């Protein structure tokens, strides 16, 4: 029996997946802060305390993560995020030709996959206004949960700022004008979609797979349906990177 551990160190949460013989047997999310504090030690290189994670015997361990975090863990084979997410999507959908949109807390990736191999990619580098963190901030201002906010797509109020910080004051202005909650929520969702569009404009195609936390936002998926023939939802959008690590470990790592 082959047990493979995959860890995706995100900007907000660390995703942990364990595969046994290519099947997911365990998954867990820990806040990034708690992960480094409670499960790791540092002596020049970050070491993960597998015992604290209580996972038992692990044959191979693969890590990936948000570029600015320390993803090079002791005993782990690090792989880049593009690959991790592509493999995750291939594992979860069995598809070989698709466009992958991964929207995480601070980072957006778009990947084109043809015949099972990456042929194009784009990442946000300078700004994180098109990421999950923007939705979180806006939901906080509206004093509503992220889940509730993500349900509203109809008749969005117009939010035009490019900057996420200016957007907050713009939203407060709309609240002051007495715009109803549904339209405010839809406005936030639509503004994120508008920011994603230029990134997606180079990635036309039939099929879009959405992963990352934003995949749970039904309003944004609804907007994206106008641009693609098919939006493929996967079961574990937030664990996709960690699943990809396991897939890599079981299929390619010797």
């Amino acid at each position, binding site marked *: 029996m082959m047990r493979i551990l995959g860890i995706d160190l995100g900007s907000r949460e660390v995703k942990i997946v364990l595969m046994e013989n290519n099947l997911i047997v365990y998954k867990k999310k820990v806040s990034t802060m708690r992960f480094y504090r409670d499960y790791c030690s540092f002596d020049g290189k970050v070491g993960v305390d597998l015992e604290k994670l209580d996972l038992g015997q692990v044959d191979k361990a693969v890590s990936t993560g948000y570029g600015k975090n320390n993803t090079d863990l002791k005993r782990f084979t690090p792989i*880049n995020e*593009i*690959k991790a997410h*592509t493999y995750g999507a291939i594992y979860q959908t069995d598809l070989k030709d698709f466009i992958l949109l991964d929207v995480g807390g601070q980072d957006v990736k778009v*990947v084109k996959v*043809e*015949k*099972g*191999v*990456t*042929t*194009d*990619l784009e990442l946000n580098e300078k700004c994180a206004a098109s990421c999950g963190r923007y939705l979180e901030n806006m939901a906080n201002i509206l004093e509503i949960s992220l889940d509730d906010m993500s349900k509203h797509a109809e008749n969005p109020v117009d939010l035009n700022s490019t900057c996420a910080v200016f957007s907050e004051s713009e939203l407060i202005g709309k609240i002051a004008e007495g715009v109803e909650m549904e339209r405010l929520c839809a406005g936030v969702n639509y503004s994120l979609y508008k920011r994603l569009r230029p990134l997606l404009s180079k990635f036309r195609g039939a099929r879009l797979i959405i992963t990352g936390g934003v995949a749970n936002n039904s309003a944004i998926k609804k907007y994206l349906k106008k641009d693609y023939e098919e939006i493929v939802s996967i079961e574990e959008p937030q664990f996709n990177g960690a699943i990809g690590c396991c897939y*890599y470990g079981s*299929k*390619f790592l*010797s």
Partner: protein
Amino acid sequence: MKKIGITTTVPVEVLIAAGYKPVDLNNVFITSENYLKYIDIAEKDGFPKSLCAWIKGIYGACLENDIKEIVGVMEGDCSNTKALIEVLQLRGIKVYPFSFPHSHRLKDVESEIRRFMSIFDVKEETVEDVRRSLNNIRQLAKEIDELTYIDNKANGFENHLYQVSLSDLNGSIDVFEADLKKAIDDIKKREAINKKLRLGYIGVPPMTGDIYEFVEKYDAHIVYNEVQREFAFPRGIEAANIFEQYYDYTYPYNTAFRILELKKQIEHRKLDAIIHYTQAFCYRAVEDIVLKKQLDIPILNIEGDKLNTLDARTKLRLEAFLDMLRDLKETK
């Protein structure tokens, strides 16, 4: 010897038989330190920004290198070339037309080459004599190709360079022949290049010659240069006559004919993947749709424009592509 400019490969045997020295304007353009100046000359004369850099570069190279006569390929190359030729005529350059017939029937190719011979007033026997002597050089280029994909000793850039130079024989048959022989001797003495991935490069020769060296950093060896090899006519050596040689040539005819040869080479050279280079604004990027569908192998389409080095984005794409190919190779 009088110089005559060519904009793509044409039956040079005829030109040489007529006492001309063919000069491939593509090579003059791309090997010049001032290649951007050539593009600039064309743009100042009204060529649009949104046009293939090769067309503009050829134009500048033609005017700056005192080329007074050219062969204009009217059929079998792109419509931009046709328009380029009209502008060159306007600048007082004498144009001898040549066509690779769309029909791709042997008798049409024959009558076109006979017409070409009569323009230059050369006899078929003289042309065949030249062809036989050029076949020695074609044989040497073929040897370099084999040193690339069989012995794995020649690198992708050398393979590209020596084959693409066959279009105008680098300006001098004798010097070029000596260069090829020396290169073969040197290459033979080397150790084999041991890379995990075997790549094919298809499409027009690159503006970005650094691609060969770049992929080597990611454990890949380009062992096939499609169009450069076509320019070198390795199958022409066995052809019965010049008409057959230019009939069995995949560059100017339809994609279906081109695909037959590609499939053969993918198999024969054991390629893991293909890089399909296309020039910005070129119709050949549309052919990528057909190639991807018809060829059962991973294909990365990259695009070059004016710069002669790979841009950061293309490098990132190549890196990601090769990274995953190496994984796949592990499981084979």
